[in-house]
Structures are given as C-alpha cells and as structure tokens.
C-alpha cells in the first residue's frame, strides 16, 4: 500500500506502471525538435471539424483511440477515465470522449492537468480500486487564443514573455506494476499566489508553485537534484524556468543542470516564433507521451520528476483585476519500481 512520507508526499509502494502512451500534435508541433515522435500529426488545424473546440475534442478522441490501439485495449478494458483541458467547462474532454462509455472524471488543473490526472490514476491503481485507467489531456492554440486572448486574425504583437499554447494531446494507460515507467511517488501541489497579474507572463505566475512542490518533495524524501537524471517542468518556458532555478537556489537546491521544461522542448524558440516557449495542457502531455515515456522505457532516463504547472485564472478573474494563482503537481517516474516492502526512494 501507499505510504505517506513527510507532509506532502505519497510513496506508491506498488509502483503502478504507465503501460502505454500516445501523443497527437499539430503542424507547428510536428515542425519542432521532437515533432517526429508524435504518434499522429494533423496538419489541418481544424482536424476536419467545424470549429476549434470540436477540433480539440477530435484530438482527444484520436489520442484515446491511439493509446488503446497501441496497448491492444478496447474501451471496455478501461475502468476509469481522468481527463481535462483548458476550455470552459472542459468541453474538449466531454465532447471528445463521450462515445467511449468509460466511467469518467473531468478535471481542471489548467496546464497541470496531465500530472493531476496521472496522480489520481496512479492512486487508483495503487489502492487496488482498478486494474487499468486512462489519463488524457489536450490543448489547442486556436481554441485557447479565442477564449483567453484575442481572435486569431487580430493584428497584435505578442509580449516577449508570452507563451504559445500547444496544439497537442497526450493519453496514458496506467496499470498495475508490470513495466517501466513506474510511478514511485507523487506530491500534490497547493494553490500558490505570488501576486502576479500579467496574463502575458504565465511562467512567472507558475514558477513559485513549481518551486514549492519540488522543494517539498526533496524535503519529504530526503533527496535532491543529484538523485535524478531529469527534473521536467510542464510549461514554465524561458522566463518561468529562470525564475524556478533562482527560487530553488535560494532554498539550497541547484537544479540548473538537471532541469528541462516541456515548453522549451516542444518548440525551437529561435526559429518558431513562440516568444518565451510553449504552454497548455497539451505541452506537458505531448512531450511526456511522445518523448519522455519511451525514453524511460528504454532506460535512457532512470529517475525523473515530472512537474506539470498550471495557472489557475479565468478570463473573467483577470478582467476583474485578480491575481493569477499557480499550482504544480509532481510525479517521480522511474525505470525501476520501489523495492518490495520498506524501500526508500532512489
């Protein structure tokens, strides 16, 4: 069974496995550094649909179908579905996954949703409440722009701190301990508000939450950056990554050599015109499901922390002058499971 370590961290002693993953991307994502690793690339931003929202739903549908195909599963084999996206009332998930007939939990964690859904999935497997569950999230540049910012054709300059919402989806199957990657421990984040109001600087709004969650994990497990090959944040992009490194350095943890950010992996900032880097649920989900999970499975990455971050505002709260709180959820992913019986972390 799971063991509480310290105040915030839960060690999953049975080490549930991520037995399959699938990633869907758009044109810009396909042109990026890891573009070739996506399972499906759609060069039509509308995905053959009538609206951007339906396009995002279609992307989730494709991600769910692809991961089931890769694992030779049918919807009947999956007991629960944890899903979310950025749209109001998470309609991309609701419409995209409605035909599967799998018991469904809708989540909103902004861009942290991939980690949130994986944590809940792994807890469910660890607790013996299910044999197989699916975690899935998405974001679409066009649907996010019109909801959070301006119409696509509106002529405006983006701030250098702004981020580019990824058109991508990722889906994972989580099952009982069988193969790497294993989920060894999780730390659920708290909502953190550092008085940031700038909608064009999400990395700054989320970095403190990432710093706190990572620090808590290190303190709870008596580990540090040296115990990991990689500390991968979700979508802090350049500004947020710099801030995270500085915040953790003040706490005594130098993560610079181990840290990478999905928002900086998904796109090439020099050529792809994404300003500070990528963002969105699909950014962390796409990078994790296309690039990271296979790398752990092949043993290229042994122990890593996946820390997806979310900015928890709405267009209305921002217009009303409210701060942008952030959140970060952490998973310790590994190529080896926790030792049976009382084992510490790597």
């Amino acid at each position, binding site marked *: 069974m799971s063991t509480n370590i310290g105040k915030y961290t839960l060690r999953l002693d049975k080490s549930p496995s991520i037995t399959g993953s699938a990633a869907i991307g758009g044109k810009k994502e396909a042109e990026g550094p890891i573009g070739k690793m996506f399972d499906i690339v759609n060069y039509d931003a509308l995905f053959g649909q009538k609206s951007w929202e339906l396009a995002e739903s279609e992307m989730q549908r494709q991600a769910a179908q692809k991961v089931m195909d890769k694992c030779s599963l049918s919807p009947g084999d999956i007991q629960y579905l944890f899903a979310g996206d950025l749209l109001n009332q998470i309609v991309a998930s609701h419409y995209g996954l409605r035909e599967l007939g799998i018991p469904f939990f809708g989540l909103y964690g902004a861009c942290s949703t991939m980690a949130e859904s994986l944590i809940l999935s792994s807890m469910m497997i660890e607790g013996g409440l299910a044999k197989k569950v699916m975690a899935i999230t998405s974001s679409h540049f066009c649907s996010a722009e019109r909801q959070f910012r301006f*119409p696509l054709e*509106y002529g405006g300059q983006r*701030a250098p701190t702004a981020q580019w919402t990824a058109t991508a989806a990722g889906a994972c199957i989580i099952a009982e301990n069988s193969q790497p990657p294993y989920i060894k421990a999780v730390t659920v984040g708290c909502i953190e508000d550092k*008085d*940031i109001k700038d909608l064009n600087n999400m990395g*700054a709004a989320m970095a403190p939450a990432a710093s706190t969650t990572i620090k808590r994990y290190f303190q709870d497990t008596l580990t540090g950056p040296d115990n990991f090959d990689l500390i991968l944040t979700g979508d802090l992009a350049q*500004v947020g990554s710099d801030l995270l490194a500085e915040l953790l350095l003040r706490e005594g943890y130098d993560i610079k050599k181990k840290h990478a950010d999905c928002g900086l992996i998904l796109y090439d900032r020099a050529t792809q015109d994404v300003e500070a880097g990528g963002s969105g649920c699909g950014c962390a989900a796409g990078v994790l499901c296309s690039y990271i999970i296979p790398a752990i499975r092949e043993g290229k990455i042994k122990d890593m922390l996946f820390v997806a971050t979310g900015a928890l505002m709405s267009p209305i709260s921002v217009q009303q002058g409210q701060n942008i709180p952030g959140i970060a959820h952490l998973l310790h992913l590994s190529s080896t499971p926790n030792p049976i019986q009382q084992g510490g972390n790597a």
Partner: protein
Amino acid sequence: METVTNQSYNQMVKKASPPSKSARNIPMAFLVGGAICTLGHALIKFYMSMGVPEETAFPAASITLVFLSALFTGLNIYDKLAKWGGAGTLVPITGFANAITAPALEFKSEGYIMGLGAKMFLIAGPVIVYGIAAGVVYGVILYLFQLY
C-alpha cells in the same frame, strides 16, 4: 517558510522578463504605419486624378483602406503584417477595420446573431463607445466656448 515575499518575487520577475524589443518595434511601426498612410494619400491623389471631387476623394480613400484591411485580414495576411508593424498597423484606419473583421471571422462559429453580430465589436466596441463619448464632451466644450 516564506523566504521570498510577494514584493521581492515581483522584483525577480521584472529582472527575469525580457522587455519589448523597442529598438526594432518603434522604427518598424514608423515604416509600416507610414507606408499605410502614404498608400492612403496615394489613393486620394488617384481618385482626384480620376475627376473625383476632393471632399469625396478623402472618404473614398478611407473606404478603400478599410476594404483592403478587411480583405487582408480574411486572407490571414494582416495579422502577420501586424506582428512586424505593431502600432504601425494598429493606429491607422486599417487597424480599426482589422479589429472588427477578426472577431467577425472568429466568432462566426457561434452563429450570425450571437456570434458574428454580437462579438464583432469585442475589441472595437470600447473605441466606438468612448470615441463617441469623447466627441460629445468635446462638442459641449466647443458649444460653451462659442456662447461667449
């Protein structure tokens, strides 16, 4: 626990955030905005050379610019021009046309009444409202001055 206060964090954010590239943006705005205005003036000259009276040539040039802006918005070109032009594409009448056309295109998916019709003024609406309000205030001031 709280080693970094909100205030000191905001200082850190300011330091970590790159500023807008003014050295590039301002000259580009001057050039692109200037080019659009030159085009407008060329249109006025053109219409007048065609025998259009001056007081009609001015609005005709404006209408042509509005049409071109809406057309280029629809062709996905205006937003790309604006990325370089910045304020140069925003300030002339073409910027206003773009601000109306872009939401009209974007929100058509919610229908012609509550989508296109209602959301068309999403960006330009405040400009119209406060533009008219400022016009009224200016008119009142002008009226009062003329009384004395």
